[in-house]
């Protein structure tokens, strides 16, 4: 028994030391944690930082964030909670809701239906007026303009939402999408309504328009949108852009880019098993020799990634800049990312050098069309409200 006690105590000791050993010597494979965290700042040890308790507090926070085996622990806890209780712990960051049949939703999209974002009538009027003026400005400069409204998984795929997560339809308040879309159409703004299209395609789509484990439209869904979007841009600009077509769907277990971003955010051990079969569009490139890749500016949210990537991959664009939330430039080809301060952007140069400007916005983000790019652009031309 003495030997057993000694070995057991040794194991316990080793267990206490293992995170530090892993942090500095990395004996076990390093695992990444999916999701974005703001790393706790490093605090210098000074008299003030010590006596105020700031040094101790921040050091502990940094230690927790960088501790060895952290990813192992997080995955274990999440896997246990998901397997035993069907949900994860409530988080301060992005909260993933596990729906029926393992379909995942992002809590904030459910919240937007439960407690919709609201805007004063004056804000709505001003926003639509700015869109109108921006459209007119683009037309004047010979640049195409298209507003792409990406749909929410909650509105397109409500059948897998867990019971009680949303109030019954008759008790729901109107979301800004419902209030603004009719008026946007009335104002003559060229718009591609993703929600309308997805609800129309849903019943006979060859693959899911929203992946089980993702919060964004699937690559198949984005490719279908692209098929619809190019002719609209051609009509606007009078130019002939390459127009790829979705011809088939292939299935395998390879997870493609954002198609399982919510699943990845679960940070579990059984990601690939739970993600299941993945559907990918088979896209036929446009071989028309007269078609010329365009130069586009896109201002959008995270739904724009799939669209832009497809445009680049399928040769629709020779050069594309995506102003992601109007805070970061993502340039194609190459998908290089550069953060910027908004004041450093010259809207005139950005707009006038393009074939078309695409404003992509998810219905969740109404009324923040262009994330302040439009007022800045109108101001640059002296046409703001």
């Amino acid at each position: 028994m003495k030997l057993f006690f000694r070995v057991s105590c040794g194991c316990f000791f080793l267990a206490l030391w293992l995170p530090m050993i892993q942090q500095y010597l990395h004996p076990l494979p390093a695992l990444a944690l999916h999701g974005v965290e703001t790393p706790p700042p490093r605090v210098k040890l000074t008299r003030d930082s010590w006596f105020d308790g700031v040094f101790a507090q921040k050091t502990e926070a940094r230690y927790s964030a960088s501790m060895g085996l952290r990813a192992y622990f997080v995955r274990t806890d999440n896997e246990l909670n998901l397997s035993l209780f069907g949900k994860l712990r409530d988080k301060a960051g992005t909260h993933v809701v596990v729906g029926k049949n393992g379909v995942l939703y992002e809590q904030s999209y459910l919240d937007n239906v439960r407690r919709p974002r609201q805007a004063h009538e004056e804000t709505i009027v001003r926003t639509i007026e700015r869109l109108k003026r921006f459209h007119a400005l683009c037309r004047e400069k010979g640049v195409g303009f298209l507003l792409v409204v990406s749909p929410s998984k909650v509105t397109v795929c409500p059948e897998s939402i867990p019971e009680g997560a949303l109030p019954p339809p008759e008790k729901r308040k109107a979301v800004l999408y419902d209030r603004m879309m009719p008026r946007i159409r009335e104002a003559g703004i060229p718009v591609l309504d993703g929600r309308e299209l997805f609800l129309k395609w849903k019943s006979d789509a060859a693959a899911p328009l929203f992946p089980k484990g993702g919060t964004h439209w699937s690559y198949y869904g984005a490719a279908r949108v692209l098929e619809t979007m190019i002719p609209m841009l051609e009509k606007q600009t009078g130019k002939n852009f390459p127009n790829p077509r979705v011809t088939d769907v292939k299935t395998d277990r390879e997870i493609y880019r954002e198609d399982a971003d919510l699943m990845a955010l679960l940070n579990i051990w059984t990601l690939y098993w739970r993600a299941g079969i993945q559907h990918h569009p088979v896209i036929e490139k446009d071989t028309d020799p007269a078609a010329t890749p365009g130069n586009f500016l896109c201002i959008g949210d995270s739904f724009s990634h799939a669209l832009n990537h497809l445009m680049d991959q399928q040769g629709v664009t020779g050069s594309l800049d995506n102003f992601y939330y109007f805070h970061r430039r993502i340039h194609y080809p190459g998908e290089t990312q550069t953060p910027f301060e908004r004041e450093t952007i010259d809207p005139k140069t950005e707009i006038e050098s393009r074939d078309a400007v695409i404003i992509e916005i998810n219905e969740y983000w109404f009324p923040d069309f262009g994330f302040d790019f439009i007022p800045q652009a109108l101001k640059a031309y002296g046409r703001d409200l």
Partner: protein
Amino acid sequence: MVFSSQFFLFFFLPIVLAIYFIVPPRARNAVALAGSLWFYAWGAPKFIFVLLALCAVDYGVGRAMHPASGRARFRWLTLGVVCNALGLIYFKYANFFVEQMNGALEALGVGGVSWTAVALPIGISFFTFQKISYLVDLYRGTAQPAASLGSYVLYVILFPQLIAGPIVRYQDVHDQLRFRTCTAAGFFSGMWRFCIGLGKKVLLANAMGEIADRLFDPKQSDLSSPAAWLGVLSYAFQIYYDFSGYSDMAIGMGRMMGFEFLENFRRPYLSKNFTEFWRRWHISLSTWMREYIYIPLGGSRISLARTYVNLWIVFLVSGFWHGASWSFVAWGAFHGFFLSVDKWKKDHHWGDGPRWVAIPATFFFVCLSWVLFRCNTLTHALHYLGDLFQSSLFHFTAWQTAWSSHLDARGHALFILSLFLCFRPEGPWVRPSAVLPQPSDSAPKTWPRAAWQFAGSMALLLLSASALANSSFNPFIYFRF
């Protein structure tokens, strides 16, 4: 730093234990002292100096008192106790007294006194009682003075029991400060106890706390009776698992280092009356109160009326010791009342009734007292107590609604587990549990039990570490800037 933090578990503890066992036994006190100073200074960098100064005063008073006799000896004791009491009163209660005084002055139309709030040193309630225990034990001759100032400081600030007890009487550890043995069996037993405590705190107490916090939120309006009871029960489990978990970790760490601390909790919710409750709940506090307040006041060896008064004094002090708030005083008075009732029943040879009645009845009243303990103000406590007894108490659908809307699958499972672990029957006919430590447990003597405790320790450590790591990980899906 707290015991249930990653920094403590995977940085502080392994480093301190490693050095503790590497150095020769005669240097272990120095290592324990250095680790304890680091532990306290880390959480209370300003107050470490106050604490060391107070320790120096106590040590000096003890040294002066020991050779003295008669009135001089008593005067030294009085000086020491008063210094400690004043320190506690100033740091813990000055803000409260000034606030009450200002309230009274303003009610009389006179302006209040301007006052800068005093910060509360961590653990002051615990280490003050320990310091008083040292002086009184020296006075009574039940212990010898500490061999050195370092030895005395180690007694006061030994990190396993510094922040949240158990309150260690000097007479119980003074021999261990001089000489103790560390064995593999003792370390094993401590490891098992530590992991149980960690599991109780991280896996049960925190989960119950989430439920209780939601239901006790003063902004909660229209709480149904079943929901209010769910809140009370959750809090009852939270406070038990939190406090007893901490004690288990303290006892476990002490045992790993060769110290034996007295038990602090013994399945208190299985008590048949309040007297028994206080022999099972926070045993070190009730022991201290009995030794150093109740018995010096005469205990029960004086007139009946004085005995009842002494009981009330002890519990009012106990209530106030827990916190500077009228709701804590009310909590103490509540317990004082029921202890007086127990005394009266005993004096009149009244029993408690059958166990199946006495235990739930005692638990019921203890839960009511937890409302006073949990609520920040007496007003909120009274409002909450009112919520407990509405007509919805007798409606099955109200219970169903409360259960389903306030508990998810995880909440259900952990609530039932908490209930089961609290109320599992005990008694000689039940095999001593390997899950919960029994009083005076020691290392297992059989292979199956040892293997089970080792596997359980590793599992609890892994589950707790996973829960702690995950609670500090709050990612967003993407940058939104």
